[in-house]
């Protein structure tokens, strides 16, 4: 018992000697994000990049769909995770201006688990699978870009053509989109 005490004191001394300044506290959010990142199954179509390697709460996800209407495009999303994660969902924004029924021109993404259906047992993998799914199966019933949704509902073939035009940097109904191929 005595030995444990003296060991503890020594440890304390060593910590104080280092000058307290180096004491970076790892937050609950960081711990959880670290775990989530380890479990991330990105496959061949997705990639993460960390602009600041010391900051795992802010990163970019790049998706290159290899099938579906958005095949061949490169889409990036910024992930901003706050200290209340996993009680708050990550904030996800598309960096490009794209033609998609569930993504508006500012890049806001309409995905249920990013808003009302988020729960803390979901992980980052669930989010990226959700994003990937939006490119395979755009959803016209819950639109953020109403015109794109209308096009998809009325004429799927015309919608597909619009997607190709927009991805090439062209204009659809007077709105010019960013080139992503």
């Amino acid at each position, binding site marked *: *018992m005595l030995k444990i005490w003296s060991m503890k004191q020594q440890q304390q001394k060593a910590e104080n000697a280092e000058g307290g300044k180096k004491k970076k506290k790892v937050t609950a959010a960081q*711990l959880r994000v670290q775990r989530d990142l380890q479990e991330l199954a990105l496959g061949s179509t997705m990639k993460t990049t960390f602009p600041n390697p010391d900051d795992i709460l802010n990163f970019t996800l790049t998706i290159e769909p290899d099938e579906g209407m958005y095949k061949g495009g490169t889409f990036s999303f910024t992930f901003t995770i706050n200290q209340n994660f996993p009680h708050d969902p990550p904030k996800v924004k598309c960096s490009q201006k794209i033609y998609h029924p569930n993504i508006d021109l500012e890049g806001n993404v309409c995905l249920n688990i990013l808003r009302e259906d*988020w729960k803390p*047992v979901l*992980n980052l993998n669930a989010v990226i699978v959700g994003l990937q799914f939006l490119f395979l199966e755009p959803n016209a019933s819950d639109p953020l870009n109403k015109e794109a949704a209308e096009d998809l509902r009325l004429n799927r073939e015309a919608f597909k053509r619009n997607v190709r035009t927009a991805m090439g940097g062209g204009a659809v109904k007077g709105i010019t989109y960013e080139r992503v191929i």
Partner: protein
Amino acid sequence: MKVKIKEWNAIATWRWNMPDDEVCGICRVQFDGTCPTCKFPGDDCSLLLGKCGHSFHMHCLLTWIQQESSKGLCPMCRQKFEWKQNDE
């Protein structure tokens, strides 16, 4: 030979009655560890067992339940979260 015991120290170990590899769904830390805000496991950082069969660190679940967006639901199954009393 007679032995006289002058002094003795008792040592005990304990653990939660949970499967070894199960983790809290909210913080993903093992139940035998603490929630991320606590330093020592034990009564100060206990577990909550839900009637729906899902368990969490008490602190993890309370943070969630106190949030308006939780609507009082279990983060696993979205049933109303009610915890079991000890004797149930």
